[in-house]
């Protein structure tokens, strides 16, 4: 029982890390390798507001997310849209965006070091125990989990119940046909990308309450997010959430019952098995 709850909490953390990338990669078709840096920047925002003004990271989210939305919108319009325009196929776009965002990630690390230094940003927020069925959990992790549920739920509602969400899903399936039915593809793509950035930065602010980050830790989160997005199926929010929770429970299970040293191995084993059985991911559509 304890394993399931601890695993669920970890899964919530993973969902926060990966949801944004799914929007960017699945919907806007940009494989954003600078995703982890967005997360770290969000975490830094939370740290800065907390140490400077004692502003709760839960409130900071509302500052950080719009800011990240604006910055990511700009990045998309200025840097990425020319790549989308000139790409002849999805494959070419993928290669171009991977190279570009890889470069961007170095720039982002450099800028963060120049602005804030390379030191760890570490603070304590809501590190108080919560008792639940005889076991204790960190309140900050519980809050992050609840936020993951909220953000995931809101995204799902928006994507599946609103007109704008439907347009986003349409461009995820086929940008060419989406244009034919009157969807403003460049605008909606930019919005999906920017929204992905906002979600990632919000996730960063939330996970920074219990993870110790520094300017160069972004790449670790990009990798984890990538694994989760691909496992869950590119372009499907439900898949990302399910994959994140699966991974969280599996890692906790292995760490508790077998050995904490084997968590990484178990995570990659799960990744390989899922790819072997369902190459398109748990909820992914097979490519036609």
């Amino acid at each position, binding site marked *: 029982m304890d394993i399931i709850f601890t695993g669920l909490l970890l899964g919530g953390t993973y969902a926060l890390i990966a949801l944004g990338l799914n929007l960017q990669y699945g919907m806007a078709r940009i494989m954003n390798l600078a995703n982890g840096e967005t997360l770290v920047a969000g975490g830094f925002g939370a740290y800065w507001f907390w140490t400077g003004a004692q502003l709760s990271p839960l409130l900071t989210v509302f500052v950080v997310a719009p800011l990240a939305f604006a910055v990511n919108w700009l990045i998309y319009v200025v840097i990425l849209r020319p790549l989308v325009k000139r790409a002849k196929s999805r494959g070419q776009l993928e290669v171009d965006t991977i190279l570009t965002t890889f470069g961007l990630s170095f720039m982002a690390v450099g800028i963060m070091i120049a602005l804030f230094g*390379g030191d760890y940003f*570490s603070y304590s927020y809501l590190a108080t125990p919560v008792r639940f069925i005889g076991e*204790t959990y*960190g309140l900050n992790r519980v809050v992050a989990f609840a936020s993951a549920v909220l953000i995931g739920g809101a995204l799902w509602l928006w994507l599946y119940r609103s007109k704008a969400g439907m347009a986003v899903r349409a461009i995820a399936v086929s940008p060419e046909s989406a244009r034919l039915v009157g969807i403003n593809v460049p605008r909606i793509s930019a919005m999906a990308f920017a929204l992905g950035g906002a979600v990632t930065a919000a996730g960063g602010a939330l996970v920074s309450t219990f993870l110790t980050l520094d300017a*160069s830790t972004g790449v670790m989160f990009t990798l984890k997010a990538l694994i989760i997005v691909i496992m869950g199926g590119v372009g499907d929010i439900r898949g990302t959430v399910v994959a994140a929770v699966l991974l969280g429970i599996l890692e906790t299970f292995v*760490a508790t019952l077998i050995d904490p040293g084997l968590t990484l191995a178990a995570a990659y084993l799960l990744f390989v098995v899922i790819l072997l059985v369902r190459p398109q991911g748990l909820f992914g559509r097979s490519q036609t």
Partner: protein
Amino acid sequence: MTRYLTAASLVALVAGGGAAFAQETLTIGAVGPKTGPLAGGAAVTYWPNVQLWAHDVNEAGGIQVGDTSYMVEIIEYDDQTNPGQTIQAVQRLATQDEADFILPPYSTGLNLAAAPIYDRFGYPQVTSTANTGNVDELSDQFPNLYVTLGAASGMVGGLIDVMTELREAGEIDNTVAMVNVADAFGIELAEEARPLFEEAGFEIVYDSSYPLGTQDLSPVIQGASDANPSSFVAFSYPPDTFALTEQAIIEELDVGVFYTAVATAFPAYGERFGPAANGVMGIGGVNADDAGFQDYVARHLEVTGQAPDSWASPMVYSTFQIYQQAIEGAGSIDRAEVSEYIANNSFDTLIGPIEWDENNNNPAYWTVGQWQDGTYRGIASTGREGEVDPIVKQGWGE
């Protein structure tokens, strides 16, 4: 604009004319992580000391060699925590920048990786952040490599001595939960510790490792807690040092000794955990009451805008002092002569006197420290002054 420049250069000429009679510049290289996994540690322990040392030397009028005073000019390279990049940067400093001296790199792994290249170009390498088991073989291979921070066996031995003392005083029993980060540093210390714990009559009731960068350490603390140990020992790196402590507070891990390794001596640790940190033990230490150290902390704060840590920071600064004293002592900037001087002399540094044993080690170093009432103090060393008595951990207090 032109006039301004002319006026400015005139002033510079006049002002410089007197002082710069025999003033030259010494080019000093510094290679360390500004990005990559160890960048966070280097930003606390390494880079601010480079800045502070250069500032201190130049403010005092430079390094005196005979009648000439040498101002130091630092060239910094980021090695991205990548040994290949460290080697390249040292090579570049030696061949292209023609650095007169190169300060030691940061961390055990990067220092060892760079040792052959320092050796090849004849640069003395007085390390300050390397902590390794096989120092004896190293000095045969690289005669100009020095280790000041101590050996893994001494670090672990110091901890076990402290724990034995507490056990004999009846404060803890002989059960220990031990975890380590699955990285060269953690594995080496854990391997060193297993037989030593057994020899000292301790029983390891929980023994496990976790990968570097693990996002959730609650199963580790949970596992340790279930084994009901009297002491908890973690050979950990900075992010996990913070995460393990936070999790221990949440789970109210009830132990008499709580030990984490790197970053326990960081000022950020005390700031983050406040009174809960009281009684936490960590790797390395310092004589916190020493006036020289307190003065160093004040200067460090003033020049770099941040506080040093209470273990490796003063050691890093001390090794830089060794370079300075050796150049002045040898009366030359010739590397062979300076190396010769380093090998045959002892040095009076920030952490106290440093003398070499037959393997080019500094045999007197801090092994264990502890947070006591908001200050991190050294509680065990292999021959340093100012050790204070350890206290037993009394819960996590709110």
